[in-house]
């Protein structure tokens, strides 16, 4: 068994509660929102919570969520937008609320995803803010996703490495200002991959339904597995992979497809 095969990989999707996944057949006809997580957990071992980006996490809601999933099920939670995209409120207070809200998830929390907006470039002010933010989240497993190319520098990777914070590897359309797809490992405990789809036109349209409307082919995923994924697995203790191309249930289809490719390889 090679090094890369020893690294367990958890595959899931970004969000699980989509009505269109019923229309598309991932959930059985008539499935309603409260029943979705347990059905999802039959297929995937982990989910990325994206509603935590839209609103501040609340301990009571998180507790209810945990209760509806198996004990072994894992979660990755996005950091709330008031700490990344819309920092017009007192961010220290927001951070305190987030830490308190996410606490019930601690045992099943695989990572907190700090997704930064495309406009968040490597300015002095932003570097200062990010350093304070990451300090404020100390103690939680963290993964940082940059969207601006200016962060693609060795000094940034070294800093993340020192803090044992994971740099998120993204698969997205190739655009000049977008952070590129890199197989850099900054935290040997964990790698974190997000598949956004490769719909360049959709990405530029500003329409979320078009942006993530993409289905990876078997060849594309097999190539990814042989290239970037193999490289990440050979240097990490554990890996998380999420498909964000949620439109028309392409994400769970692609997740299952990658799962089958990995199983085949394992066999």
């Amino acid at each position, binding site marked *: 068994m090679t090094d890369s095969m020893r690294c367990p990989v958890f595959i899931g999707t970004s*969000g699980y509660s989509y009505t269109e996944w019923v229309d598309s057949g991932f959930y059985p006809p*008539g499935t*309603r*929102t409260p029943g979705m997580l347990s059905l999802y957990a039959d297929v995937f071992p982990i989910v990325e919570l994206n509603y935590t980006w*839209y609103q501040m996490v609340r301990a*009571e*809601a998180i507790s209810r969520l945990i209760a509806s999933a198996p004990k072994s099920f894992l979660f990755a939670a996005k950091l709330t937008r008031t700490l990344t995209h819309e920092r017009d409120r007192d961010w220290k207070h927001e951070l305190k609320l987030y830490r308190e809200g996410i606490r019930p998830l601690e045992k099943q929390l695989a990572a907190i995803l700090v997704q930064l907006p495309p406009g968040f470039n490597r300015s002095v002010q932003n570097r200062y803010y990010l350093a304070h933010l990451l300090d404020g989240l100390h103690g939680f497993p963290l993964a940082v996703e940059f969207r601006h190319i200016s962060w693609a520098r060795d000094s940034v990777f070294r800093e993340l490495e020192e803090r044992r914070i994971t740099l998120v590897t993204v698969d997205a359309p190739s655009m000049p200002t977008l952070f590129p797809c890199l197989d850099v490992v900054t935290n040997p405990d964990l790698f974190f991959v997000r598949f956004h789809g490769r719909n360049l036109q959709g990405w530029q349209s500003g329409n979320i*339904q078009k942006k993530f409307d993409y289905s990876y082919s078997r060849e594309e995923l097999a190539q990814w597995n042989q290239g970037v994924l193999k490289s990440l697995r050979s240097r990490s203790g554990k890996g998380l992979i999420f498909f964000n191309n949620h439109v028309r249930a392409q994400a769970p289809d692609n997740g299952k497809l990658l799962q089958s490719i990995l199983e085949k390889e394992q066999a």
Partner: protein
Amino acid sequence: MQDRAIIHFNVTDFAVAVERIKDSSLKDVPLIVAATRASRAVVYDMSEEAYGDGVRKGMRLTLARKYCRTAQVLAPQPALYRRAMMELVKRVRVFTPLVEQGVEDGHLFLDVTGTHRLFGPAPYIAWRLRKQLQRELGLDPVWSLASNKLVSKVASRMVRPFGEYIVGAGEEQAFLAPLPLSMLPGIGPKEIQLLADFNLSRIGQLAGLSREQLQVAFQERSSSLYDASRGRDGSVVLPGKTGDEHVTRGHTFAQDTGMYAELKSVVSILTHEVGRILRQRGLLGRRMGVVLNYSDGSRTIRRTTHKGGSDNDFLLRRLALAALDKAWGRRVRIRSCALVCDRFLPRSRQKTLFVLSTPRQLQQEKVLSAMDRVSRRFGDGMIRLGTAF
């Protein structure tokens, strides 16, 4: 059945927010909006600062001024608030035709069920709209998302003056349980007091009572309290204004008239206007009333009802004329008349599986639909049925 996705937007202290957009120098000043010239004026709206000092809506202005001495008092401008409300509605209607608005109070309910393929998940719609309203109007609404109006309204109350709250489908009862009874929409102070006598102060405690137990204390209110305490609310988002429980259209004659034919013609025209409003709002009217105001100052009101309700001008006209016949009798000239349509039912948006309408009814529907399109494009009164002449 699909879970509904109801978004509630609430621009906190709407009148104050609009006044502050109009005059940015008012931004950091405590504000009270009240009719300053009235001798017994009451507070129409107030800013968070004034609220913090104890000022409340409906409080007498003299008392409010004592509570918040630094507050600047502005006279209400309903026309301005109405315009701001229209601007809000115009923007949210892009995402759904099912928009219910409060009366110049910054409250909007949106039913975005089934719009995900066009616009994405419901939280995304709410977030995107808030950004748009901030950017284009300078208003910063609180938003919440839930499976019904009742729960989304409570969720908005939880986060005001700013923020957002998503209550997942199936979590309604658990969400409401720890909240005080005063947070439950529709429950009155007397009912809260009665429940306090039973040592019940939380919504969860109320939900712990059976229908039979509630029946003993609340009789006919028991059923609605039973459902509300469990976060159940089947009410639909009705396009138009909340609490707008009737549609009225009136006409004043240039000269007082005693001619039945003239009156009949006016009633036909008014019926078409009422019918068009009902169709726009997706409502069926079950009762049609005719109000006749006589030249001697007296008034007669007569009504007719149709059990199933209708938005069809032809049927509404028959009802209106039947009411007119009932009202018509005095030998005194008439100065003005009005039509009042009420007791609404929501119109089903789903087509029936089998064709239940007669060919004539289908023809009528086509004619009305065409007339609505013409009226929308060229304005009211540009096209009328022959019965109006």
